[in-house]
């Protein structure tokens, strides 16, 4: 073996493979950006054209909040969103924890039920809900269940809508939470907290939820997006939410109707972004 002890002065060539990967990545991101942004831009461009005077105008966007009923619809939609997010968490988190920690036998049932809503088209689900609600004033009139069905339809804050939205959001919430629960060692954390004297409430509230933060937020995002964008069910059950209100006011004005929908899309996204930025990832792993 002949020892070659000359040290190279310049650095050896950087491997090509790293470059190639970055190139594909850029291409994919570029194409995706074109696909997703062009239609959005086209819609926005349509709404800011001033057809009368020429040039550009933001009047359709500024006119939205001034339209009658905006505040009410927004308030209702946001309350629905908050209630649904809370509801979906209150309903799925304990169930999933119980299934993970104590009742593994029930897991297939919970998992199966939580997938079902994906299968049923909203238009069919809402027809079923309507049929069920119709039982209230008809076949079930005078019974407590009938009363409950009727009083769940308070137009100011329709609980039935919250329930249906919870059901619709469950598949997404379930997926997100399931990943989260698998990632933390739930059993050890629960044991540790119990051993330190926590009640079950403390365990869930102080230990599990904070550590499922990412998963909970993910579930909340999808739920928020769903509630703030849902039209079919609210309109057929005749409730006045932001999406139904938007359709109502856009009327014969084409530019207004489009600006209303793009605005709500961007508004929802910004809302999610703000919530997500408010979440400082204290718990993110540092191992990379």
């Amino acid at each position, binding site marked *: 073996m002949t020892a070659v002890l000359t040290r190279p002065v310049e650095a050896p060539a950087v491997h090509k493979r790293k470059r190639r990967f970055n190139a594909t990545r850029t291409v994919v991101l570029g194409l995706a950006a074109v696909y997703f942004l062009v239609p959005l831009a086209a819609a926005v461009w*349509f709404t800011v054209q001033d*057809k*009368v005077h020429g040039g550009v105008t933001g009047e359709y966007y500024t006119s939205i909040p001034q339209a009658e009923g905006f505040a009410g619809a927004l308030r209702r939609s946001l309350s629905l969103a908050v209630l649904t997010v809370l509801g979906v968490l209150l309903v799925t988190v304990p169930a999933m924890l119980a299934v993970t920690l104590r009742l593994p036998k029930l897991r297939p049932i919970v998992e199966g039920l939580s997938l079902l809503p994906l299968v049923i088209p909203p238009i069919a689900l809402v*027809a079923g809900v*309507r*049929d069920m*609600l*119709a039982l*209230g*004033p*008809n076949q*079930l*009139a*005078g*019974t407590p269940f*009938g*009363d409950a*069905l*009727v*009083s*769940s*339809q*308070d*137009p100011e804050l329709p609980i039935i809508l919250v329930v249906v939205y919870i059901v619709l959001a469950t598949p997404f919430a379930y997926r997100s939470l399931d990943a989260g629960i698998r990632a933390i060692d739930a059993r050890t954390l629960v044991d540790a907290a119990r051993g330190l004297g926590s009640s079950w409430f403390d365990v869930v509230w102080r230990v599990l939820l904070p550590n499922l933060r990412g998963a909970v937020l993910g579930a909340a995002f999808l739920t928020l997006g769903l509630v703030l964008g849902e039209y079919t069910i609210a*309109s*057929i059950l*005749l409730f*006045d939410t932001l999406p*139904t209100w938007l*359709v*109502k006011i856009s*009327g*014969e*004005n*084409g*530019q207004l*109707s*489009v600006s209303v929908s793009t605005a709500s899309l961007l508004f929802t996204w910004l809302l999610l972004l703000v919530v997500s930025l408010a979440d400082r990832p204290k718990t993110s792993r540092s191992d990379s």
Partner: protein
Amino acid sequence: GCGSSKKAADAQNNKTGAAAATSVQDIGGLDALVAAAKAEGQLNVITLPRDWANYGELIDTFSTKYGIKVNSDNPDGSSQDEINAVKSLKGQDRAPDVLDLGGAFAQSGAKEGLFAPYKVQTWADIPDNQKDADGAWYNDYGGYISIGCDAKKIAVCPQTFADLKKPEYKGKVALNGDPTKSGSAFAGVFAAALANGGSFTNIQPGIDYFAALKKSGNYIPVESTPATIEKGETPISIDWDYLNAGYTKELAAKGIDWKVAVPADGVYGNFYCQAINKTAPHPAAARLWEEFLFSDEGQNLWLKGFARPVRLPKMTTSGKADATLVAALPQVDTTKAQLPAPDQVDAAKKVLTDGWTKALNG
């Protein structure tokens, strides 16, 4: 508030007061009706877009005139939605009081006993073939299928269904929705049938006509809305004349010269129907609304929205119809204008539902 299903059952049997009234006399005259309606203070209407047949102004006028708050729900909803709302909201304060339905739905609803029979003061002015003998439903306004056209984008606006086949209209012709779902789009197909050798008992030529139009690329299946018209995607839109004509003003503000023509080769007209929900939460206001709609004022307001109110023939003769408004209506060769019988429409719908997709697909 806390609802009660008991109330629904009660509403069912509540045959006293306004809810039982089948005419204004039953309540004790119009003033008594107004007083009772004012006491209720609210009126729930459903599936009434503000830009449809001048409903916006009708609602506002009624509201100011009687000091009654009008709640308008699900403006883009369908007749089926109205029927469903009546059933599922029975007994609730937000159940619809009055309905504006397609003919088929009015008849089937009446058969199910969902409506409260009521005869407005001007009942006699409504032709017999346009109302239920007991007053469960009655035609309110109607119109003709028309061709709307953006004169700035289209050099020569088409005047007939035959014109629409010209190659210059490639990718420009649209219906107001899907004829298997939307009433006006269905009417468009029926009109096309009449223009192509069909009849009230034969809608097939209309289907074939659109299939050919699709094949040539003239017809695009997108739902025409003010937004697509403004965008220029649907510069030619087949729709009720009162809708097309109603758009003109708003579109003019956007710099679009929207021309409306009722095609002479396919004159097809039809009426919608009014009905009162049997379990209306505001029975007096509901009846007052009907009186208002069928009064001269109400009928003229419809006319203002380019719709043709049911009393128009009588009012024209009596001179109560606003002449300028009548003159502004799209011109129709009324000699050709006939109304299809409800069972004819039903039969045609069946043919269309079965055949449309097959004919147009591909």
